[in-house]
């Protein structure tokens, strides 16, 4: 099992630890509900150093990214722009979802991928790298803290002269942060609570320095470390997809509601499949739903219509800490994928009533 630059800190702080994607990661510290509320109301710090980072470099880097991803990376036409995207496979499924950062447009890009898919993505992109783009897997030496919450930017601004207060969503700056050089501070995140993600090279005690500084400014104001448990409940309330649950090798971005990152202005893997889906429609859609009767939806539970026919399955579910009700996401047949549709979640062989709602959940 691999460690992140912060594994020892999590253990010393009494976190509940578990293996996630081959890394020894904190699942929770004080309890998921408490951590969740801290991020929604104040600010919290996630160690997400397990995420993978690739650098793609050279005159054909953009061409390669355009061919393997679904979004239009040519829109990243100035340094400091980032976008959400996915890597489609040749069957119209998804290899992974990712972030694309334009470090130097048309020359240097950073791709940020899911920890569980680092090797798969690397092999996939390498296979399509027919024009000699320089590729570096910097995952092991790159640390990443997500500082998220309505107060996160205010606290973090104290640690840098770069203007992060006015950073727009999906933009970033690179420079000195907490006394460490070449840090990427990005106005992105997986919580919907605002905040930044902080990428740095873990050398010469940089991780230690950043952690101490981040908590020196935020700790006295109630900022706390947050585990992966609350990361999941936070993203689910927003309706953000989790790879391996809501999207995978068998789901199309159009089925998953990711049409907005599927751009037909360029050529890319499975473009024709997605174009046909756009014209003809898809047979199932990923929807959000909330429970009407008591019960908590969980990954893999089946979904039925009122006639008792199986019409889909749950991909993610939880008791929502902020909304105090049970919510979930799942694929359902398209005729029941509209807001207000009555569906039934099969919980321990009982059909429990739910209804399709829009996301983010409210």
């Amino acid at each position, binding site marked *: 099992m691999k460690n992140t630059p912060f594994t020892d800190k999590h253990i010393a*702080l009494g976190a509940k630890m578990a293996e996630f994607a081959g890394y020894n990661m904190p699942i929770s*510290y004080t*309890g998921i*509900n408490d951590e969740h509320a801290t991020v929604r109301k104040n600010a919290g710090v996630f160690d997400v150093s397990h995420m993978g980072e690739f650098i793609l470099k050279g005159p054909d880097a953009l061409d390669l990214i355009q061919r393997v991803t679904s979004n239009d990376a040519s829109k990243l036409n100035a340094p400091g722009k980032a976008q959400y995207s996915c890597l489609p496979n040749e069957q119209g499924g998804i290899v992974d979802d990712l972030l694309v950062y334009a470090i130097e447009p048309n020359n240097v890009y950073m791709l940020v991928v899911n920890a569980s898919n680092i090797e798969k993505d690397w092999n996939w992109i390498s296979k399509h790298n027919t024009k000699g783009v320089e590729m570096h897997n910097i995952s092991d030496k790159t640390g990443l803290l997500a500082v998220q919450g309505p107060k996160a930017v205010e606290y973090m601004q104290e640690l840098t002269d770069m203007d992060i207060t006015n950073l727009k969503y999906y933009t970033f700056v690179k420079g000195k942060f907490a006394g460490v050089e070449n840090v990427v501070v990005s106005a992105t995140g997986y919580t919907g609570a605002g905040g930044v993600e902080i990428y740095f090279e873990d050398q010469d005690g940089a991780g230690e320095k950043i952690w101490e500084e981040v908590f*020196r400014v935020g700790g*006295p104001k109630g900022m706390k470390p947050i585990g992966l448990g609350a990361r999941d409940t936070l993203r689910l309330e927003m309706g953000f997809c989790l790879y391996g649950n809501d999207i995978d090798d068998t789901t199309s971005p159009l089925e998953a509601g990711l049409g907005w990152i599927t751009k037909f202005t360029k050529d890319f893997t499975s473009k024709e499949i997605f174009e046909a889906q756009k014209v003809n429609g898809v047979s199932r859609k990923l929807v959000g739903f909330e429970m009407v009767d008591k019960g908590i939806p969980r990954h893999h539970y089946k979904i039925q219509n009122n006639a008792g026919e199986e019409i889909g399955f749950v991909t993610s579910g939880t008791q929502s800490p902020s909304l105090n009700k049970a919510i979930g996401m799942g694929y359902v047949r398209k005729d029941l994928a509209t807001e207000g549709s009555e569906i039934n979640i099969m919980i321990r062989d009982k059909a429990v009533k739910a209804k399709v709602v829009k996301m983010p959940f409210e």
Partner: protein
Amino acid sequence: MFPVKNDYFSRKFYNMNFPENLKYTKDHEWLQIDGDTATVGITDFAQRELGDIVFVDIDTEGKALGANEIFGTVEAVKTVSDLFLPVSGTVKEVNRDLEGTPEAVNQDPYGKGWMIKMTIDNQAEIDGLMDAAAYRQMIGE
């Protein structure tokens, strides 16, 4: 170092409580035996491992079940765990207060967090349960 509350979820700082007057099972349940009936819940260790408990689902009231049969389910934010009847008997009463306050299982696992009251069919099955010392040893305390 920044301040972290030494509250009850924090593994490092928390002293778990296992009352001496209870019996314990390998599935992390406790029984308070009173003649031929028992009150059943989950242990301090179990509630701490599960984290924030959000739903206790028991629909076996009035049912006669064998030892180790599932009598209900306890759900934390991220996990679902079955509840096993510690000894053969009939589920006589379910703690309905947990419908509105499932967090009582975290806050007071041996008190307000009790789950069922049951009759005991066979007193000999009690002998197979652990006392507090044996349970502590099992969980590596």
